[in-house]
């Protein structure tokens, strides 16, 4: 059952990434920001989900489907790597360095912010009960 959950989550994550990628794509943008936006949003939601979302669902199979399946597939490392290589191949080193630093620093920041939001919301809910 957990394999079905992960496969369905992975399917939805990949399709959503594909659609968001098309929606955000701008042919003349010097910066591959669809992948950046997707990766940062996915990292933020993962941080929140681990702290609060998984507590709300509680079903381990469904948690795996959302966390490993959906969020894991929605974000991508391979596109990030190849975009950096393509930027460097075009001689756009300054943009490549910016893209790298923004992705890596804000990626960690997004997870931390998501976790923080999760714990604040959890605490608030606890106080209301």
């Amino acid at each position: 059952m957990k394999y079905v959950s992960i496969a369905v989550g992975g399917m939805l994550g990949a399709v959503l990434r594909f659609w968001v990628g098309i929606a955000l794509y701008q042919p003349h943008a010097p910066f591959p920001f669809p992948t950046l936006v997707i990766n940062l949003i996915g990292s933020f939601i993962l941080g929140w989900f681990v702290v609060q979302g998984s507590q709300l669902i509680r079903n381990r199979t469904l948690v795996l489907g959302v966390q490993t399946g959906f969020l894991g597939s929605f974000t991508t490392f391979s596109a990030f790597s190849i975009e950096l290589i393509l930027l460097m191949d075009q001689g756009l080193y300054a943009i490549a360095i910016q893209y790298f630093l923004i992705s890596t620093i804000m990626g960690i920041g997004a997870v931390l912010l998501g976790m923080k939001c999760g714990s604040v919301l959890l605490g608030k809910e606890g106080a209301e009960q």
Partner: protein
Amino acid sequence: MIITTIAVAAGGAFGALVRYMVSERLNSDFPWGTFFVNMIGSFLLGLYITIGGPDVLNSMYAAGFLGALTTFSTLQFELVTLYKKDKRKVLYYLVLTYTLGLTAAWTGYLIAAKI
């Protein structure tokens, strides 16, 4: 568009499953599983991007399978959790992932350019 979406979905389901199975076996106190799928995925995308192929196959394989096989969110989350446990390991994980990930994509890209 419908066929392309189905192709991405099929590749995504398969990519997520392979990532989970590899991570289940290799992730221990160091996330070797995530590391491994990210390296392989970057290499294969580098290899594939210059060769290309029919659009539907492209969607299934590159956007669907390789996109889902590799993950950015889990990597960031593992960096955060590893930092709390072992600060030296987090440095290894960070440096290894980014240097070898880029090297893998670049190697694939160069090999494909030579073919």
